[in-house]
């Protein structure tokens, strides 16, 4: 009997001392393996008398179970400490920088344009486009700029070299030539993206690059314009006023913006108007919706009957309005960029600061900016 308890305490000591799985396995084999000490004792049961067996059997089996349990417990403990050790060795310094990523930005002018498109889309305006290189007819003559008229000079036009026939193409000085392309179809074979004649009623906006030979803090030789054109039977100047008022409030995202319509002159509209917004210019920057200064933001008017006639639209049946605004300039006003030239300089720091992230897409539900 002493044998059994001695064996038990001996094995218990060895199990406790086992420092790793190999040592523990060694103990298990020696105790419970095929030729292990406990297995041998169990094997000896068969040779015993029934009385002896009745007495020894439970003891030996009890020893076997106790040792097996001890080994299993030790095994779990060893595994746990091994995992702890491995995890401890896997420690990393999480103050290290993440995978390098560049900050991509949408250009503020094109963000501004997206905002404008969102506003006008809700009013039912579609987009029309036209080429940047225009002929004199579309850029001037059809828009009621008589040949050699001083009003043409006000546009600081860029001319391309004359062709063999002496005809000079122009870089469009405004997006208004697209008005002509929208209203008057052409027999020329044009790519599908260029507006090519549409019967009234018409309600379009025309975004695009325009060009004037001018350069200072508020003028660049290229900039972006947005044109609007509405032709219907009973559209009058009051509709233009409402449209531009509504646009201004939505664009500047404030109801406190005060606008003013005043007469102006454009060859292609009659009557013509410019619209000012009230602003505060004290302190070096322009704040819309406060103050008592006025700032001109756009021009427009009723489409000149001659322009309608030039496009084959009967001015006694159809009338409507057109307007044009500077996209870059309104973006500068809204977001506070001081110099127009920076818009076209592609400076990474400027783009990161004034640009917009991909998901800041103007959306009527979330607001524009």
């Amino acid at each position: 009997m002493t044998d059994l308890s001695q064996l038990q305490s001996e094995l218990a000591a060895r199990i406790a001392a086992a420092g790793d799985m190999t040592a523990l396995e060694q103990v298990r084999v020696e105790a419970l393996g095929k030729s292990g000490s406990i297995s041998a004792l169990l094997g000896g049961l068969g040779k015993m008398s029934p009385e002896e067996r009745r007495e020894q059997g439970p003891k030996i089996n009890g020893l076997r179970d106790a040792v097996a349990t001890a080994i299993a417990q030790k095994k779990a403990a060893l595994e746990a400490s091994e995992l702890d050790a491995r995890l401890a060795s896997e420690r990393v310094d999480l103050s290290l920088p993440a995978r390098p990523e560049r900050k991509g930005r949408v250009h503020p002018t094109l963000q501004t344009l997206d905002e404008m498109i969102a506003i006008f889309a809700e009013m039912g305006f579609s987009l029309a486009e036209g080429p940047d290189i225009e002929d004199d007819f579309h850029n001037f003559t059809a828009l009621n700029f008589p040949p050699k008229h001083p009003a043409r000079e006000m546009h600081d036009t860029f001319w391309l070299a004359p062709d063999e026939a002496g005809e000079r193409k122009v870089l469009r000085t405004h997006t208004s030539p697209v008005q002509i392309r929208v209203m008057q179809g052409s027999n020329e074979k044009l790519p599908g993206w260029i507006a090519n004649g549409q019967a009234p009623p018409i309600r379009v906006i025309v975004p695009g690059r325009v060009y004037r030979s001018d350069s200072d803090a508020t003028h660049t030789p290229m900039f972006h314009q947005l044109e609007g054109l509405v032709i219907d039977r009973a559209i009058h100047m009051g509709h233009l006023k409402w449209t531009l008022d509504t646009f201004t409030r939505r664009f500047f995202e404030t109801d406190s913006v005060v606008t003013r319509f005043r007469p102006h002159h454009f060859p292609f509209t009659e009557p013509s108007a410019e619209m000012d917004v009230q602003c505060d210019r004290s302190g070096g920057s322009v704040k819309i919706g406060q103050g008592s200064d006025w700032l001109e933001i756009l021009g427009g008017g009723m489409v000149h009957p001659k322009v309608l006639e030039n496009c084959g639209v009967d001015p006694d049946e159809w009338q409507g309005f057109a307007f044009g605004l500077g996209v870059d300039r309104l973006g500068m006003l809204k977001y506070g960029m001081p110099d127009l030239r920076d818009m076209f300089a592609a400076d990474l720091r400027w783009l990161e600061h004034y640009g917009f992230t991909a998901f800041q897409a103007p959306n009527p539900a979330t607001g524009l900016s």
Partner: protein
Amino acid sequence: MKFTLSWLKQHLDTNASVQEVVDAMTMAGLEVEDVHDPASRLAAFSVARIVEAVQHPNADKLRVCQVDTRDGRLEIVCGAPNARPGLTTIYAPIGAYVPGSGVTLEARPVRGVVSNGMLCSASELETAEESDGILELPELPVGTSAAEALGLEAVIDFEVTPNRPDWLGVRGIARDLAAAGLGTLKPEPDPTVPGNYPCPIQIKVDGDACPVFAGRLVRGVKNGPSPAWLQQRLLAVGLRPINALVDVTNLVSYDRARPLHVYDLAKLSGTVIEARLGRGSAEPSPDTAPSPARHRDEQLIALDGKTYDISHEMCVMADANGERPIGLGGVMGGESTGCSEATTDVFIESAWFDPIRTAQTGRLTGINSDAQYRFARGVDPQSAVPGLELATKLILELCGGEASEVRVAGEAPAAPGPMAFDRGYVKKLSGLEVEPARIDDILTQLGFTVKGEAVTPPSWRRDVEGKADLVEEVARIVGYDALPADPLPPMAVPPGGVLTVRQRRMRDARRTLAARGYSEAATWSFMRRAWAELFGGGAPALVLANPIASELDCMRPTALANLIEAAARNARKGFPDAALFEVGPNFRGDQPQDQWSAVTALLAAHPSRRWDKVEADPLFELKADLMALLDEMGAPPLQVVQGQSSPWWHPGRSARLQLGPKTVVAEFGELHPRVLKALDAEGPMLAFEIDLDALPEPKRKGVKTKAALALSALMPLRRDFAFVVDAATPAGDLVRPILGADKALIESARVFDVYQGPGVAEGMKSVAVEVLIQPREKTLNDAEIEALSARIVGAVEKATGAKLRG
């Protein structure tokens, strides 16, 4: 142009303040640029009189004065030598800001005596550049404002739109302001001055050069400086008084928008002045010194002392039987016949010159005179004789003399005729409700003749050509602030949105690339021609005749050069890691169909040093961005074609993405070092350019119902295949036959290793491909998998000659 309130009041009976005038001008369509108002600047200053002046106890040069001011009798210390009892001068109270010296007055002792204000000099008030002592004024009442005492008044500076040349005279402005309700237009006294003798100078016109020419002589004048009121009036609007005769012409020009010219009879040669076209032919230039190397057919030394070449398009005034040019009609007179203080007999010219011809002459000569500005915009053709009469009257008043009869040659262009005007059109076009009587009243006040339905514009309103112009007249006088704001009638928004597929793709491209770390640039549509040539552009048809700068002289064939330059510019500033893109137009020619739109992106590949040592070829990062973008834009599967890229790409590290054998949708890769060097940019730089117009559009726009999704419940299998193939064979060539080997079962195939070296024969490479097999109806048994593998190997071998690696 500028005018003063007192000048306006010569024509307009009004009590309006400067601000009211400015507001009314703005709302009538005159853009006020600036109001220079000395009255508000000098509001604190007023007239005072010195009662007593004694020597300062502690300073030789100072006097202590007792002064009567509007603030009572004050003790003021003054250093001016002319400070004496009885002197009327200008007083500034404590707290006033003195513009000339830039100080705000404080009550503090001057050498022990407190000065309770200041007596001012002209320079301290900024009414003169220099001054000697304090102002000495006539005996005006104490307390009179300084502005009034000094005759200073507000000057209004404004811009006139090209349609309204009548606003280039103060009376024209007064007429509009009267109509707008700001006062009453004063009636004009008849200026007619009967002549006492026939005009000894004959006049002749060539109708092309000068339709009408009126003139007369005034003999026995005494020329000299103009009286103070006239000098002051001219100075206030920025004109320099010269002598009475010349000043009268300037006055009439600014008062009536009617330019005139005066000739000194003694300097004229012969007895005829002729207006004819110039005899020059060549393109003239405003050289001051004529070049002997070039033949000059006809020249004029103008009043500005410069010599101008006269072209056949210009109108020339000539004497000596038409042989000697003595002026450019409507632009500038000649030096040889100008009036001086010695002039005793003066010939006055009042003609009408064609606006386009005058504008052209101004452009060609570079002269932008007051006369040229007015004639180019259109002077009232009926004003030749009335203008002449007015000038005669003024000359007789200022210089005396005796006027001849008036001579007129030619005929003024016809005045605008009557037009039918339905008053209801005002409401229809403007939305304004205006009573017909009010409409007629407004038009009448503006000088229109209203007779029943018919309305006739006045001779000075040649811009009014139709009924829309009449609506504008009514609307701007009623006031644009009265316009209703009527909501646009609702118009259904197209159910599929307002953007076309192409417009939507451009928008998606911008946001996709921004999300992938590229920043959007907007660069010029033009570039240096030499650069355009490097990128396949630079055709003569795309060269600008008048570029703003020589490096911006050609329409761009691509935005690539601009982006490279921008990246290089950023690098020079210390920011070399540029990732830029642009969505914009490029140009193959000058016709509308030659313009195409591209998405162009550039990556200046300067991989940052990384602590985790991960390195990847940035070209494949760029390819990932390109592929993601094409996927976003809904591009169909495209073929990678290497070895045919445009010459600005690295020949080995670039490719095209093609749709079929001809349509190139994109090019991408590393840029050629030669090109980068030419653009002074440090490489390497990677880029792609997608031709948006080459990207096919879906057959129909609108909702595309997605095909039903059949998800297999069976586990997919992954099998790896390693092939040995000629090293020159693109790895992509192995993938295509694998996908084709069994379209139903093979889901995807992806190259995961490429190896060259020991174990693989020279000139060959091993390409390892992972194939994903998706059983559809039942699991595959070993035999079926073997059969499929054999089909894969067979297909690859057939297509590329590759053998399964043993």
